[in-house]
């Protein structure tokens, strides 16, 4: 069993109040005796941690603050998400990274895989061997065995036993959470949508940082009720004429909100997110009957990330969302040096061309220097719709 970290970092006193509060909030969880698991990716089966009574939190960073520190070890021409996340780990500036007793990563993209090797020197790390094919019996068997191995690692590190019933309960709870978040983002199928794309993103992103399941689901339900009653009372925060945009591509949140802002400032509205912050993780329910480990494995393996080859799940979801949300145009956000999404953008472009849906690819990073260029591109795109 590992020893859980409960002390504040040495640099704590130098932090601004907001960051100090973040640290104190996680410390409170730790002081209550709960272990914290950090994950990077939508492929991580959170049910395992939930079943073990652990708190899990996303470690994908969204700010350029720690990139200079990361670049002491990592190359400059690397995805900002990878650099920033690693940077927070080496500087002790992120409470979640700092307090994570176990960090779980997957063999997704090459940049992350090699970054994890360096991160392992700093954190207690577990790597899941994720296959790049979702359909062969061998891939499925490998992934199932990896879920078992993760369960055993969690049991050993935290000194707990995870039973099938605990897993079934966790699957049920996570399904409820997915269903609610899906209900929330599907409100934007209305014309005009009842919320801006920025608000939708902030709710989806923010839900990753709520640690009490009951509170979290109640909050989402309240948000849904509030939005619905506002709309019924005639509130129209979005113009009926605003072109309806779907965003696809790399995960979003934090500084990359700039992409949503430039689209909405130009008069468009983002109605759906086909990415890991949005529909990719909420769209489907995990099977509840039968062997929970197999259900979890099958559920997560079907996520349509560009690291899969081929990647039909993404296109099935993308096509379906475009119809469901009556989309006028698709904007793909790729982070600098994200090779898999950048290369797959060609396939996305062709896929949308066949459906007569205009498409714009925007490459960006975690800086703000490109706001002018982004707003010209997004503005012209909205004007042409």
């Amino acid at each position, binding site marked *: 069993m590992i020893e859980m970290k409960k002390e504040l970092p040495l640099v704590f006193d130098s932090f601004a109040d907001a960051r100090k509060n973040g640290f104190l909030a996680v410390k409170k969880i730790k002081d209550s005796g709960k272990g914290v698991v950090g994950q990077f990716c939508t492929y991580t089966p959170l049910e395992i941690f939930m079943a073990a009574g652990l708190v899990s939190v996303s470690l994908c960073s969204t700010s350029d603050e720690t990139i200079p520190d990361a670049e002491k070890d990592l190359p400059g021409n690397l995805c900002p998400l990878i650099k920033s996340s690693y940077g927070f780990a080496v500087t002790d500036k992120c409470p979640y990274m700092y307090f994570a007793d176990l960090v779980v990563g997957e063999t997704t993209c090459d940049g992350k895989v090699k970054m994890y090797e360096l991160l392992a020197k700093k954190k207690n790390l577990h790597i899941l061997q994720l296959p790049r094919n979702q359909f062969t019996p061998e891939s499925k068997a490998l992934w199932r065995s990896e879920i078992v191995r993760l369960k055993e690692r969690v049991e050993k590190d935290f000194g707990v036993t995870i039973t099938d019933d605990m897993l079934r309960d966790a699957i049920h709870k996570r399904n409820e959470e997915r269903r609610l978040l899906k209900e929330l983002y599907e409100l934007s199928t209305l014309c005009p949508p009842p919320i801006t794309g920025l608000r939708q993103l902030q709710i989806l992103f923010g839900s990753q940082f709520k640690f009490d399941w009951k509170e979290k689901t109640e909050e989402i339900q309240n948000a849904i009720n509030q939005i619905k009653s506002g709309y019924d009372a005639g509130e129209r925060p979005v113009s009926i004429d605003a072109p309806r945009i779907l965003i696809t591509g790399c995960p979003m949140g934090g500084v990359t909100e700039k992409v949503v802002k430039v689209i909405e400032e*130009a008069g468009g509205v983002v109605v759906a997110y086909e990415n890991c912050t949005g529909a990719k993780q909420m769209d489907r329910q995990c099977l509840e009957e039968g062997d929970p480990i197999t259900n979890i494995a099958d559920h997560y393996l079907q996520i349509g990330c560009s690291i899969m080859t081929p990647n039909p799940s993404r296109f099935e979801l993308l096509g379906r969302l475009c119809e469901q949300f009556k989309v006028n145009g698709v904007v793909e956000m790729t982070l600098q040096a994200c090779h898999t999404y950048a290369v797959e953008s060609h396939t996305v472009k062709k896929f949308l061309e066949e459906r007569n849906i*205009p*498409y714009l690819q925007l*490459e960006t990073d975690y800086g703000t*220097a*490109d706001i*002018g*260029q982004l707003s*010209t*591109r997004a*503005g*012209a795109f909205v*004007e*042409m719709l």
Partner: protein
Amino acid sequence: MKQITVGIDCGSAACKGVLIKEDSILAVCVKPTGWNPKETARTVFQELLEQTETAEHEIRVAATGYGRVGIDFAHKKITEITCHASGADYLLKGVRTIIDIGGQDSKVISVENGKVLSFQMNDKCAAGTGRFLEMSAHRMGVDLSDFPKLLTEGKRCSLSSMCAVFADSEIVSLLAAGKTREEIAGGIIQSVVTKVMALAGRVGTESPILLTGGLAQMEGIRKELEFQTGCPVNVSQFSRYAGAIGAALKA
């Protein structure tokens, strides 16, 4: 009486203005943008008014280009891509492809009836832009205006660097290795056009093609574009005003 409109295209290098009445261009004006785009735009606007003896209140103004945000006397702000499409269709009816080489952006726009179908712009990089050409000219001791004099049929050497900063040091090495300025100038033009062709490849080029932007009058660029696209490339005497014309038409 038909409305008089003004379009101001405030780019990174030059601020262009056009005054249009009944679909005819009555006045044009261009000034270096300088450090204060807002003030420069105002000066360009005043000059258009003086040239045509028009009063400000009779006019609707639309602004485009990077400086558009700061132009407070504009009734409308439109991106330069939409404006270029409509301005280019005015200059060359039925135009299908616009190649615009500007100060900090180069772009290729696919159009039909003056409407944008799709577009590609250079990424966060100066290669393939007017700024790159200007920097390279200075490295060889000439102003951008004198640069075309160096261009000589058949004289070129190849520049391998796609990055403006690396190309700059490559030019230094080429000069040191005894290459002539004429050869290097040919290489620079080729490099700018190659970068633009990468954008064109993503959009697809259909004839007729119109070249716009501040470098449109540089014959060497037009010829190299014709060579690399294999299609005739048109230029209008008002090519650099395409964005401003589009803005005026949409004001």
